[in-house]
């Protein structure tokens, strides 16, 4: 495992609670993957532009016109909790 892979910090950033067993396993496995990835540092990328997609793509704007949308029932159909046509969540402010 690379010395700088702080699994607790990364798990917090990723918003996933990991068990001690998962932390140990992932650290070892990701160490192997990162060791493999390290080889990329051997590639000369001077003056190389990054590629975000296989092809150049540009912003596509949709016309701001009303159209069919999901009904409230459809939109809420998969909500874990709902009340008064809204998704219910625990209180987030004091």
């Amino acid at each position, binding site marked *: 495992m690379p010395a700088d*892979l702080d*699994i607790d*910090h*990364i*798990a917090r*950033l*990723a*918003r*996933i*609670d*990991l*068990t001690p067993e*998962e932390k140990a*396993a*992932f650290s070892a*496995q*990701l160490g*192997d*993957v*990162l060791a*493999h*990835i390290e*080889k*990329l*540092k051997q*590639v000369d*990328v001077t003056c*190389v*532009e*990054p*590629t*975000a*997609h*296989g*092809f150049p*793509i540009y*912003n*596509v704007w*949709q016309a701001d016109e009303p159209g069919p949308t*999901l009904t409230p029932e*459809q*939109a809420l*159909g*998969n*909500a*874990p*909790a709902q009340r008064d046509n809204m*998704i219910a*969540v*625990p*209180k*987030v402010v004091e």
Partner: protein
Amino acid sequence: MPTHRTIADLADALAKKELSSVELTQAVIDRTAAVEPRVRAFTSWDSADALAQARASDERRAAGHARGPLDGIPIGIKDNIAVTGQPLTASSKILASYRSPYDATVITRLRNAGAVIWGRLNLDEFAMGSSTENSAFGTTANPHDLTRVPGGSSGGSAAAVAAGEAIGTLGSDTGGSIRQPAAFCGVTGLKPTYGLVSRYGLAAFASSLDQIGPLTRTVEDTAILLQAIAGHDPLDSTSCQIAVPDYRAALHSRPPRSAPRHLGIPREYFGEGLDPEVGAAVGQAVAHYKKLGYEIREISLPHTEHCLSVYFIVATAECSSNLARLDGIRYGHRSPAATDAVDIYTKTRAEGFGPEVKRRIILGTYVLSSGYYDAYYLRAQKVRTLIRQDFQKAFEQVDAIITPANPGTAFKKGEYAKNLMALYLSDIYTIGANLAGLPGISLPCGYSKDNLPIGLQLLGQPFKETDLLQIAHDYEAAHDWAKRFPNL
């Protein structure tokens, strides 16, 4: 058995009224009921819904309004593509109870073509994996050897076609997830050019790599399914505005060529790690092309060794971002143990995601985290440019590139449980096409001494699916691998 026939053949039978869609769909349902306990290709299916669609197709046909070769043909759908009212689990516990309120664009197009939308097919959770062992709902078996994996992540889609549980299927391919399972199961799988097929309604894994594509028995069937789903979609901002040719017609009526086609053999794909039986089968395919008058050229794709590293950085970075939406707030599982908002995120995701998804989210979060972005993500995107340029240079010399689809044949379930890097490396021949956005097809080119299918991969130039399908068809037309069925 109608379930072992091709789309093209069944379309003909339906047109001649030798068979009804209800009879065909019922045969698929019966076949599924008979073999599914052993194959486990599906996460769920709805026979009544499929039969209702089949009845509608028969009524359309009786009224003289049949819609083309897919009308009345049952097509299975990978369970990460949205179908209205059907579950969309992505083979994850976090979406176990999710039902889609809308159709993906590919589903709308299949419906417009008259296809019977049939069943939800198993996959590696959120399409992350190479064996379909990462599904929260159990592993699919390879129909040719039930102790082996069907490949992944579209393992259910490939196994269902091989086993006759669907006449064709849709899968998705992020690093080889259509071509690799197609090769393991002895069927044909196409990953279209990035941007040719809309991703609207696909549960995203890595958005710059994902592409939906068909798995079928034959190249002609692939052309038929691709025809239905290809083309610009305003609902997907990465969808290209490009005219869609008649892929099927191009297989059968070709203008004479003034010069032979050139096929490139990349030397980096035929080295260490390639199973000799696979190498020999691909070698025989090359010899066949030579006999047909193709010119074969050795080429080099010098950055091939870096494809896996670039893929792992780009794919995990994008997946860590895409899967952030699964937070237990708006849809899917919510941890009952959570007390506050952050607690909902962390506990829901801990309970809902399986180990491979967690591993990839953690890696993706790491490579995007403060201080590491330039060293990993930005560098990977630059090496991706070099990989793309390798292919561009190769296509200045050749019309298509011929390679094995996989280094080996289907492996035993659990074989790589303790050697993840070896498992990840098994995708080495397919990943390049996703990084460069190219179309790639895998079709059967032989069987090993253990009676396991071997896959031939052809990679083509962007949006030249017609050429790719023609080249694949030139091999298939002289071989009968597509007529070989697993003994189930």
